[in-house]
């Protein structure tokens, strides 16, 4: 199963401690890695089909990027292939431009049903995985929500909440995803869990979130998961704060 990590802060941060720890603790994921970040308002991705952690060592480029990448949001994914081939193109995060922003998206979980989805917009070139189709589905529905009149005041949270509800209704599956435009981060879970920590004394400042069951340190990580009688949990994070959360 893939794993996700994100660092969100109110100012630019690097993650030289937490990113290598994440790679090490998620070392069962053998099929690639990716780091997404923002410079000004543009999204950038560095990714690879190689293992992030091999023979007790962090991948050289991963280690260097962990020291150098500097951004208010740093998103990382390590991949265990369940859909699509193992290559750089299928490593996450994916990037798409819509609703006036560059967005980054990373997904964990199996959702074979969504592989049948065909976007009416631009597909993610070359990518054939459930994750790529999930991102296209969300892009299409979010754009449609924000542009369909008449709405007095369309909000981003409602656009993403409704789009995610449609996704799990039309294409049931396991979805943990992170979706960010650089100043707001949406985190959705309907399987496994998210662990979050603020004000770490051992790692970087800011707010950290991961799918790893024990977090990245022996500090008091808070476990968040969907309630058994709900379809999922959606968090909206900006800077170091959870701004809003709602069960689906």
């Amino acid at each position, binding site marked *: 199963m893939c794993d996700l990590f994100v660092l969100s802060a109110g*100012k630019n941060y690097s993650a030289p401690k937490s990113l290598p720890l994440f790679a090490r603790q998620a070392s069962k994921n053998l099929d690639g890695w990716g780091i997404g970040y923002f410079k000004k308002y543009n999204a950038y991705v560095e990714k690879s089909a190689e293992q992030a952690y091999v023979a007790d060592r962090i991948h050289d480029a991963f280690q260097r990027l962990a020291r150098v990448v500097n951004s208010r949001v740093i998103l990382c994914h390590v991949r265990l292939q369940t859909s699509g081939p193992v290559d750089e193109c299928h490593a996450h995060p994916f990037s798409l431009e819509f609703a006036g922003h560059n967005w980054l998206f990373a997904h964990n979980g199996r959702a074979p049903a969504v592989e049948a989805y065909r976007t009416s917009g631009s597909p993610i070139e070359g990518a054939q995985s459930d994750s790529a189709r999930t991102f296209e589905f969300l892009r299409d529905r979010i754009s449609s929500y924000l542009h369909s009149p008449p709405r007095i005041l369309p909000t981003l949270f409602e656009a993403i909440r409704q789009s995610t509800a449609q996704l799990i209704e039309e294409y049931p599956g396991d979805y943990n995803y992170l979706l960010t435009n*650089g100043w707001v981060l949406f985190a959705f879970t309907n399987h496994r869990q998210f662990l979050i920590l*603020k004000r770490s004394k051992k790692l970087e400042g800011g707010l950290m979130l991961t799918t790893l069951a024990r977090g990245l340190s022996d500090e008091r990580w808070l476990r968040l998961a969907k309630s058994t009688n709900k379809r999922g949990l959606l968090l909206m994070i900006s800077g170091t704060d959870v701004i809003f959360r709602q069960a689906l």
Partner: protein
Amino acid sequence: MCDIFALSAGYNYTAQHYLPVFAEKARENMSGWGIGFFRDGQTLVEKSSEQVFIGDQVHESFQRLARVIDSRIIVSHISCPRSGGRHSAHNNPFALSFLDHIWLFVNVSKRKEIGEYQTANEPRLESDVYAARIFEYLRDQILDQVEKYPYASLYGTLRESIRHLLSDYPGLYTFFLANESVLFGFSNYRRLQLLKKTESLGDILLITSVRERLSPEEWLTINPDVNSPGKLLAVAGPDVLHYGDI
């Protein structure tokens, strides 16, 4: 009647056009002005007790600041005589440090009893005006909530704090509360007008209490319903993230 203004963008923006227009449209407020913004992890406030609009011109310093300040979030306040003293220290915005942020607060409200409020927390605001007491009250409530529910959402925490404010000190409130990442706007009183606008570097969002629009474009109006306890919105970058009754 005082007026407030806020700008939010996904990048550092200079409001050299909109701040002077705001000053001009709020020209009847003759008792001072203030601008608050964020830079390199710091929260900065420039304020004055002088009129923002003198003769036919926007105050020179206000004009120059509008050209120079660049920030993802900018808030401004233009004071009417009823808002308090004539010293610049009494003018909005006010800044307080809590929850790992230095927050900015600008307010237009009608409530005198809040002036009696005595905070038990530090730091205290020296200024003897209602806005300072409202800000301290909200800070105290937010801290109480966070102690009880450390990982509750900030929107939910602020909503609960405003409910307490309206219960303890019923009245009419319109304010903006911002940290370096997110801007909250609340009103159960004045109409707020919003405009999302595309600029060369990306979109920006403008919000103001000024009755007249700041530009000829179609502004959205948030009008607190008679039966609503008030509307609370959260903004980051150029987007309204969430919006609802409190």
